[in-house]
């Protein structure tokens, strides 16, 4: 069985937010769109995004590292958001493991967002339904696109190649190889959700830089 996922390399993410904006650009005009942006230039802007880049500081000054940390739906193999949905709008596809919301069935009760420990779902106040990362399901199978472009918009946009898209159940995929060889890990493993998306840990370089 296929399980499509993203592998995010924290060694090379530079925190440019290109994945955030290209995600929004693609999805606002795609199946999941429009994605609201209320008061975008005002004092209190608020919008729906499927992908965010966060920043963490590790260690104490002057021995600190800055880690840029992209976060979107992890397409869990045991997604807690799916069984709680009373209408079946929230579902996990058998064929490729993508977790999706059927916007025509969603009653907007928000229960799925309570069940997700990652805060991966964002409620669309305009269409009154729950939305989330679709792994660009309306792009990755599009036969009209050249084959190398049948990837999620965030992956296409990343200038540092920090996002790798592939089937993590196929041991020969680039995604699986990178998880295997670079100790790819899942977020909040203690919760047992088995996220499909993996993160490649930072390798802290020591040596000449420190003594300079």
């Amino acid at each position: 069985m296929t399980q499509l996922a993203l592998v995010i390399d924290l060694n090379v993410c530079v925190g440019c937010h290109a994945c955030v904006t290209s995600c929004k650009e693609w999805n606002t005009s795609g199946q999941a769109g429009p994605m609201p942006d209320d008061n975008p230039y005002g004092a209190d802007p608020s919008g729906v995004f499927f992908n965010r880049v966060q920043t963490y500081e590790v260690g104490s000054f002057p021995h600190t590292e800055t880690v840029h940390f992209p976060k979107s739906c992890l397409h869990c193999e045991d997604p807690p958001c799916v069984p709680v949905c009373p209408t079946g709008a929230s579902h996990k596809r058998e064929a490729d493991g993508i977790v999706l919301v059927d916007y025509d069935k969603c009653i907007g009760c928000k229960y799925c967002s309570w069940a997700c420990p990652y805060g991966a779902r964002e409620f669309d106040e305009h269409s009154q339904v729950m939305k989330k990362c679709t792994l660009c399901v309306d792009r990755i199978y599009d036969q009209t696109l050249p084959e190398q472009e049948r990837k999620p918009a965030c992956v296409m946009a990343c200038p540092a190649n920090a996002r790798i898209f592939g089937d993590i159940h196929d041991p020969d995929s680039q995604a699986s190889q990178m998880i295997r060889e670079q100790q790819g890990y899942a977020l909040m493993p203690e919760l047992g959700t088995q996220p499909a998306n993996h993160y490649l840990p930072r390798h802290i370089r020591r040596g000449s830089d420190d003594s300079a």
Partner: protein
Amino acid sequence: MHPAFSVIFLTTLIGVGQGLFIALNIGQVFDLARDDINLGHGFYAWGGFLVLSFLALGLIASVFHLGHPERAWRAVTQWRTSWLSREVIVLPLFMLIVFAYMLGHFNGMDAEQSLTLGLVGIIVCFTLFVCTGMIYACLRFLREWATPLTVVNFILFGSASGFIFAAAYAGWAGQPELLELFGEIGAWLTLGALVSRGWTLKRNAELRARPKTTTQTATGIHHPEVRQTSMGLMGGSYNTREFFHGMKALAVRRIKGFFLVMVFPVTLALLLAGTALDSAFLVSLAFLAQYLGLIAERWYFFAQVNHPQNIYYQQVG
């Protein structure tokens, strides 16, 4: 969590209705066991009407929680996995039984029919309590809710408020024996709720002291010092609105204090005075005090939950 008022009113209102329905049936058994009081059908019929009113008000409140109430019928489909779906089935079923109970008494059904309907109703009533409680208790990552005590609290609070309402109703209907009986049971249920809610408050304090999910497990950066410098957005988002109550710690403590005082000592004092003096007015005040307190209790029930996603939304930037 940001408390949702629609859900606060839904759970407290149907709780009163459920408790009142149980009280009516116990009253009827009491009535049959001692033939020196005979309430006649009117008491039960109008009691059933009151139960139905509470349930309907709760149902109306719940509609305001939905983005697309016109699709609510779809919510009956996932009963195999979703406690919310189960509640959506059981609540109207319970209303149907109460409606039959009310209609039966208006048409003078005999005691046997009434008790049979009552027994079926009570089973469905408890199923509804379990569904409502499990909606919260089944979310295992929200550790403040993920305990059987959540279901016990819903049963005890709902029954207590329902019995106290029943005591007031019996008082206004000129039934001092039933006022006393319902008042006494209501007082014991309130004391039971004090024990189970006190237990969850203690449990929550312990949970806060031992977080299971940390910034380290959320990011996978296993260093003792990891802090967020940017959540990735400067304005608000669904994540910062739905999962944070946004109130100062002092205000939250005051709401907690308010519910602890109103639901327990104030209610019990008014209830004891009301049953001792046979005063329907005092018992009604006891009900109002407890219901106001329960709104605050349910608010606190939501506010106390520290959602794991909040770890990702610590620093505006």
